[in-house]
């Protein structure tokens, strides 16, 4: 059966993620309501970029918050980019809001300032070499817990990390032609599919 990744599609740049998945031969489906989670068994989940205040609010009001949190806590591989990183953070600097809060880190919103602070650069991502990174009114990670692996840094700030089934980037891999981050995430997805199969 083909791998299916759910992409949260309540607001933001979800179409770009589905496009990146398609280039890798993976089926991406839009998640807008609880029925979208039960209609298809998901092998992974992407929380895209957009406005985290909007996405966080819609998650709750469209009754997606609890079922998605359950899936993440049960070990479903999840990739959070930009706003998606904010949703997963256990703490947001100078902000009492917590969304899923499943990943042990402190994130800072709009850490590079307003749109004039948005930038593109290249940096090392895990052991995958240099990749292009686009930061749009981006957050970064101030600190991580001991159980979190740091995958990338730009100017001493943490911009990508992994804790178990959760991978986050403060940049937007879906906005460049480079598919390294999606490939990295899909390896995680494949490992979990294999594990589930072996347990059975």
């Amino acid at each position, binding site marked *: 059966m083909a791998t299916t990744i759910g992409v949260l599609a309540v607001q933001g740049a979800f179409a770009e993620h589905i496009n990146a998945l398609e280039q890798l031969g993976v089926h991406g489906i839009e998640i807008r309501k609880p029925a979208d989670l039960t209609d298809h068994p998901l092998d992974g989940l992407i929380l895209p970029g957009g406005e985290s205040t909007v996405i966080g609010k819609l998650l709750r009001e469209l009754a997606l918050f609890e079922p998605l949190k359950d899936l993440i806590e049960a070990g479903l591989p999840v990739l959070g980019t930009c706003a998606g990183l904010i949703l997963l953070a256990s703490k947001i600097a100078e902000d009492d809001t917590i969304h899923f809060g499943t990943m042990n880190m402190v994130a800072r919103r709009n850490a590079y300032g307003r749109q004039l602070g948005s930038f593109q650069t290249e940096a090392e991502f895990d052991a995958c070499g240099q990749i292009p990174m686009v930061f749009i009114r981006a957050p970064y990670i101030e600190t991580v817990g001991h159980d979190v692996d740091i995958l990338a840094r730009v100017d001493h700030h943490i911009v990508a990390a992994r804790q178990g089934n959760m991978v986050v980037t403060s940049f937007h891999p879906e*906005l460049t032609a480079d598919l390294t981050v999606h490939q990295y995430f899909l390896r995680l997805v494949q490992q979990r599919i294999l594990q589930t199969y072996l347990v059975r």
Partner: protein
Amino acid sequence: MNNRYELNKNLAQMLKGGVIMDVTTAEQARIAQEAGACAVMALERIPADIRSAGGVSRMSDPKMIKSIQAAVSIPVMAKVRIGHFAEAQILEAIEIDYIDESEVLSPADDTYHIDKTGFSVPFVCGAKDLGEALRRISEGASMIRTKGEPGTGDVVQAVRHMRLINQQIRTIQNTREDELFQAAKDLQVPYELVQLVNETGKLPVVNFAAGGIATPADAALMMQLGAEGVFVGSGIFKSGNPAKRAQAIVKAVTNYNDAKLLAELSEDLGEAMVGINEQEIDLLMAQRGL
């Protein structure tokens, strides 16, 4: 074009599927953010009031815009008059996230739009057909919206503009390559942009609906017609219950195909803005800046 232009187009991509709301005070900005706006447009008077007050309407007081920037964490946009590049320089100096070169304000130049390629901050511009959209893009706009007819609560013009832009895109997409040169002349736009539309079947930037959207149903209509998000101006803070209406429009944009949910969202919203039919108004703002 340069890297900055790509980053500015990218910001518009992050706004997709969202609602951008007109606000005139920090308090309204907070209500809008709380209701789920993906950005706010800071202006002194909303279009309906500009329309009734008459006179020349200009860029807002930077102090008022700064108070709104301080009040919310979402992107803040503000309007400048068509062709008024000095107003745009001022907004860039206060680090606005997006400038709307807008027909809602009195035009400062009846021939030339701002050369937006000379700026680092992004611009959104209105268009009522594909020619206008591509001309604004060639001048450096990184986001397009329909003009609609601001301050009326009448969606007819936004519908007309969205349908026309998409019809013209489909026509270009199906045009023979050797006929694209003439198409570029007819549309009065650079050949390269016509070629791009021919290849991709869409605008090279994000396209929102604006002008006259007042209800969740209006928002859903525009999304089903191909808008990637909506601007709501007078429709929210001219209505009986702004917070509730704003929230309903936000959810309608996300679930624009779910009629059952739209029915729930449309219930009990209080009074909508009164509205004026397009036949009843003397000033068509959409005719400004071609």
